[in-house]
């Protein structure tokens, strides 16, 4: 049997089979956690050292490339990492295959929707002249 395949075609479609596939999930979770370690430190330090936290100061901070780009990266990494983690929790506690599929799909929609809203807001700040 080749790598990651199940004994039956249906099993392959359902993602069953040997554990030879799946290592990339484990690595991806560590990659996003390492990214969030750096970006999270940047975010906390930025918020702490900004001269003030009023809307004007924050919009100017996030309109500049030095604020907009790390924040966009933080948003993407945080949503990907959170989706990974929530799916792991769901995988542990939701045993019915159908319910698990439904909850995971809902989580995917929430993550993509939330990340899109955040990135739209960042785009509006950077390109919309909100500052």
């Amino acid at each position: 049997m080749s790598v990651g395949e199940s004994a039956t075609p249906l099993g392959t479609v359902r993602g069953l089979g040997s554990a030879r596939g799946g290592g990339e999930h484990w690595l991806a979770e560590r990659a996003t956690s390492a990214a969030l370690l750096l970006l999270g430190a940047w975010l906390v330090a930025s918020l702490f050292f900004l001269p003030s936290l009023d809307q004007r100061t924050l919009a100017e901070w996030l309109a500049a490339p030095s604020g907009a780009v790390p924040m966009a990266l933080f948003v993407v990494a945080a949503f990907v990492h959170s989706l990974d983690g929530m799916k792991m929790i769901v995988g542990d506690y939701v045993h019915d295959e159908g319910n698990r599929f439904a909850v995971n799909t809902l989580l995917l929609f929430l993550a993509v929707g939330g990340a899109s809203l955040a990135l739209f807001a960042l785009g509006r700040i950077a390109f919309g002249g909100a500052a």
Partner: protein
Amino acid sequence: MATDPARPQSRPKSPHLTVWRWGPGMLISILHRMTGAALAIAGLALLVWWLMAIAASADAYADFNQAATHPLGLVVLVGLTWAFFQHLLSGVRHLVMDTGAALELDTNKRFALLTLVGSLVLTLLIWVPVLGGLL
């Protein structure tokens, strides 16, 4: 068997559903999951609201600010700050353990306790000056 003098009286037990006790390792493990879920749900919702408010207008941001500086809002923000640092430090501990290091019982226990102390200290370092400024 119990009377065999060559055998130690207290034998190690394997943890099971009802065979366990509180310890730093299991506490940090469940806290990692709980803080992660809190950050994913409340933390990200707040992040999106915050960014949308900054993008919208000074008025929209004033609404966010009013909620954030409300006593309940401050409890949520301080709680999420602690959750952030606890999850971050516990995550670093996991990255270290992924390399095969720090798995010895005493080292493992010490690192687990250090994440608790570290998250508390970092949260206080952030919020004591901020709350001092607000009060």
